[in-house]
Each structure stands twice: as C-alpha cells, then as structure tokens.
C-alpha cells in the first residue's frame, strides 16, 4: 500500500499518464527487476524444452513420429520405462513409509539439529559420492558384509552392488533424508494445539493420527511423494556406477544420455526426454487424482 503510494507519488510530477496507469497495475521500475531472471529462464529452460519438443518430431530418418514409434516398438527402449518404474516406485514408497513414522517421533525431539545435520550429509555429498563409497562398503569385502557374517546372519557375502539392489540402496541413502526432511517440515507446520485438543478429548495416538494428522498431512505427503518419485525416476549416476546399466538398471535417463552423447542423435534423445517428462507428469497427476479421491476438503486449514 505505502510502497505503491510512494512510487506513484514520485512518478506523478514528471511521468506521462501511461506510466501511472502501469504503476497502478503494479508494473513500474521495480517490477522490471524481474526481467533478467525471467528472460534467462525463458531462454535456458522454456526455450530448450520447446526446442527439444519440436526437435523430437524431426527424426534423423522416417516420418514425424518415427522417434516415438521407435521408442515404443523397440524393447531396448520401451522396457526402460518399466525398469525405471520398478526402481522408482518401491523406493518412493519405502522412503515415505520410513519417513512418516520417524518424522512423527523426531517432531517431539527438542534437539533435532544433530540428527538433521547427519541426514543432510548424503543430500549434499550427492549420488556420485554415495555410489563411490557403496562400491567398497557394500561390496563382498566391505564392512557391511563382514559385519553380517561376523554376526552370523549370513554365511556368504550378499551381492549388493552392480545390480538392482545397489541402485535401490543408493536411492534410499540419498532419497530417505530428502523425504524425511520434507515430511518433517510439513508435520511441524501443523498446529500442535489441534493434537492436544484431540488428546484432551480422549483420542488415542492411532485415532489422533487417523483423524487429525492424516487429513492435514495428505496434501503435503502428496507433494513429498511426487518430488521423491520424480527424483528417483530420473536416477542416473548410481544406476551406472552401482547398478547394472546394460540390463537390470538400464533406466530411461541412461537411454536418453546414450542417444545424445554416444549416438549423437539429439532428435531421439529429445524424444526420450519428452517421454521421461510425460511419464513423470502422468504419475504426478495420478497421485493428485488419488488424493482428491481419498480426501476432499480444505487444503491448508489448521496450519500454524
């Protein structure tokens, strides 16, 4: 209110009336500060996406839809969607299933900082370093297998790297902290007096969760699920380094990368990137449609 008044007051003496009219709409010198950021993102985010979209319809050979036809008819390409889903869906569900109960415990903790600092480590170090460390630690000679043998839980080392499980473990190591911290930030955003009120009225923990937290958390959990899923779905370095990139973990991003940088077929690579984006979008839409089925009501009521 007062900023608008002051800026239009300054403009009043010299500026012609169209400047005033724009200023009244909220468009003045200050709004123009947006331009560099907006133009930059249009040039390097929106434009490449549109460019890639158009390029995907201009294949090296064949008609307009040749890339897409090739993707869905050649199992070498088409199977990457199923392969990626087989990794991303279980990982996302596992991370969320671990994150929700643990976040409910940690919420009551006064000194969360040490724990959250530890959990931020794998996120900051990134998948490449986690994969590098996993190769030895989860390998046949690593401490993990040695400890299990020493404890008598297994008799021979279990194969945990260079296969499906390697990618799964790496995605839990980097994905669980991410899911957990997001969930925690949603849970701590719920007004604690709501739970206290329910407790006063005699609701047991299970009932409090079911009737108070669950409906309030659902929108946040849907977003957390989508973000975690999208991250897992676009797994790349660990699928190459601790996975089996030629077979069990040939995920869709590997196919896109190979098309672009090994076959130099940017048109095909763009088509795969578009398919990747589309499948992610489909899952996100399914999650939000599912949420609407489970819970109808105000999205953000009762938040502190």
């Amino acid at each position: 209110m007062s900023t608008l008044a002051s800026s239009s007051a300054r403009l009043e003496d010299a500026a012609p009336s169209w400047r005033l009219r724009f200023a009244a709409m909220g468009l003045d010198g200050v709004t123009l500060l947006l331009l560099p950021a907006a133009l930059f993102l249009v040039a390097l985010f929106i434009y490449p996406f549109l460019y890639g979209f158009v390029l995907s319809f201009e294949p090296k050979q064949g008609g307009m839809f040749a890339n897409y036809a090739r993707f869905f008819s050649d199992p070498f390409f088409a199977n990457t969607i199923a392969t990626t889903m087989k990794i991303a869906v279980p990982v996302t569900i596992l991370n969320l299933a671990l994150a929700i109960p643990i976040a409910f415990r940690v919420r009551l903790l006064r000194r969360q900082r040490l724990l959250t600092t530890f959990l931020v480590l794998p996120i900051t170090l990134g998948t490449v370093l986690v994969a590098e460390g996993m190769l030895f630690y989860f390998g046949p000679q690593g401490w993990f297998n040695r400890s299990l043998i020493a404890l008598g839980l297994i008799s021979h080392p279990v194969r945990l790297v260079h296969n499906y499980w390697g990618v799964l473990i790496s995605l839990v190591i980097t994905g669980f902290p991410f899911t957990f911290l997001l969930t925690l930030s949603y849970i701590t955003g719920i007004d604690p007096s709501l739970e206290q009120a329910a407790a006063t009225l005699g609701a047991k923990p299970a009932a409090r969760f079911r009737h108070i937290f669950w409906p309030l958390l659902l929108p946040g959990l849907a977003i957390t699920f989508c973000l975690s899923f999208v991250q897992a779905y676009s797994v790349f370095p660990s699928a190459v380094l601790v996975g089996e990139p030629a077979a069990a973990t040939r995920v869709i991003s590997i196919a896109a990368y190979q098309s672009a940088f090994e076959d130099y077929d940017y048109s095909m690579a763009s088509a795969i990137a578009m398919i990747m984006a589309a499948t992610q979008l489909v899952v996100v839409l399914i999650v939000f449609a599912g949420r609407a089925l489970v819970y109808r009501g105000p999205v953000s009521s009762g938040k502190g």
Partner: protein
Amino acid sequence: MNRSLAERLWAAALWLLVAFFILNLIALIATVITSSFATRWLGTWFPAAFTTRWYFSAWDEFQLGDVLTVTFEVVFAVVGLAGLIGVPAAYAMARRDFPGKKLVMLLFLLPLLVPPITYGIPMATVLYRTGLGGTLAGVILANLVPTVPFVILVMIPFIEQIDPRIEAAARVFGAGTLRLFTYVLLPILTPGILAALLLVLVRTIGMFELTFLTAGPTSQTLVVALYYAVFAAGVRAVQSIDAMAVIYMATTLVWLLIALRFVNPTQIVARAKQAR
C-alpha cells in the same frame, strides 16, 4: 504420561532404524576415508598399513589442481550471478502485484521441480548447437538454471518480512531504486542473501547432472571428474579414486559447515514447502 508396551516397542524400533541408517552412513564415509590412506586393503577388516601417497598420485593423475580451479571458477561465477539476477527479482516478486504474477511464479518453480536430467538433455542440445556446450560459460549457464529460482524462492519470504515503511521513508527522501538497494535493502538483507548464496554454493559443488551434460574435457568440475574416475574404475588404483572422493567431500563439507551456521538443515530441502 502413561505409555503402553506396544508404544514403547514401536518407538524403540523407529529409533533403531534411524541409528541403523546413520551408522551405515558413517561407516560408508569412513570406508572411503580409510581406503584413501591404505597401502593395501584386501580381505581384512582394516588395511595393512597407512600412507598419504595416494593423495599425491591422485592430485597428479586426475589433474586435481586444474579441476579444482575450474570447480571454483564455476561455483563462484554461479553464486555471484545467481545473487545478482535472483535478489532483485525476489524483491520485485515480494513487493509488487501485477497481472501474470502466478505465471512468473510457475516459471521460477518449474526448474526446481523438474529433475535436472529431464530438462538437462534438451538444454545441453541447445547449448551445443549455439557453441556454448563444453565450455566454461556453458557449464555456468546450465548451473544458473536451478540456482536463480532457488535464490528467488529463498529470498521472497526474507524480503516480505521487511517493513515496507523503511523503503517508503527512503523514497520520500529521494532515493532511487539503486540507492534504495545499496543503502537500505542490502544491509538489512545481508543475512538472508548470505544464507541463500551459501546454499547455492553447496548445491553447485555437488550438482552432477547439469555439469556432466554440458562440460567438456577442460570444463569438468570435481564431482564430474569423480564420476568419470569411478566409471573407468580398474584403470587407476581404488585408493587413488578414494583420495579424490575425500578431497571432494572436504570441499563440500567445509562449505556445508559454514552454511549450517546460518541456516537450518531442513532449509536445504524445504524450498519445496513454498512450492505449494
């Protein structure tokens, strides 16, 4: 408060899970560090003896001097540019309502929500077509795509909490937008800007996908060089790669520790909270 046995068991099981996760995480990192100092480590709990020579050989083999130079050139360019472009934009978003604001907000949210590898491939294609692919400038531009929106989204709440009367007073005394920024807003916003830029710094050192897709042989950052070293494992000694990984961890963690003095760990991911 009375707690039943089942509740206690449930709580204990959850804490056990957390402990198990953190124990494995620490052991994983400890493995890398131990191995980087090991002379020979095969079939035993601990290496036979310790040495520092892998650090010297890794430094030469992987040209880590050059790689580190490139890394910091990229990182500081990204931090500086993201601040210069992002903070004024955040100010405009926080202070003005204009038609199409929701659309602009969406433009700033999308690069944070869409995973880098998805938009990175078309972006790398465009950069290579314009001749920027494989150059230092290309890597910097690519890394700005997620970091500019990140700065904007972190800064908007910081700016919104400043009393607009302070700016009004400066305007009354005749300050233009530039003077308002340098003499009034910048001093008030310094803690927020510092926090945002430190987070950008940490994220850019660890940003693998975008750098990997746009970097050429002379514009690799440390994390990309590490990927290639692990990818070609068997060519070099494992300990040498581990030494490189330790150097990477050290460069990241130093900045993370500095950043954590100013921000809460949850802020590193909670950007998505504003994404609603």
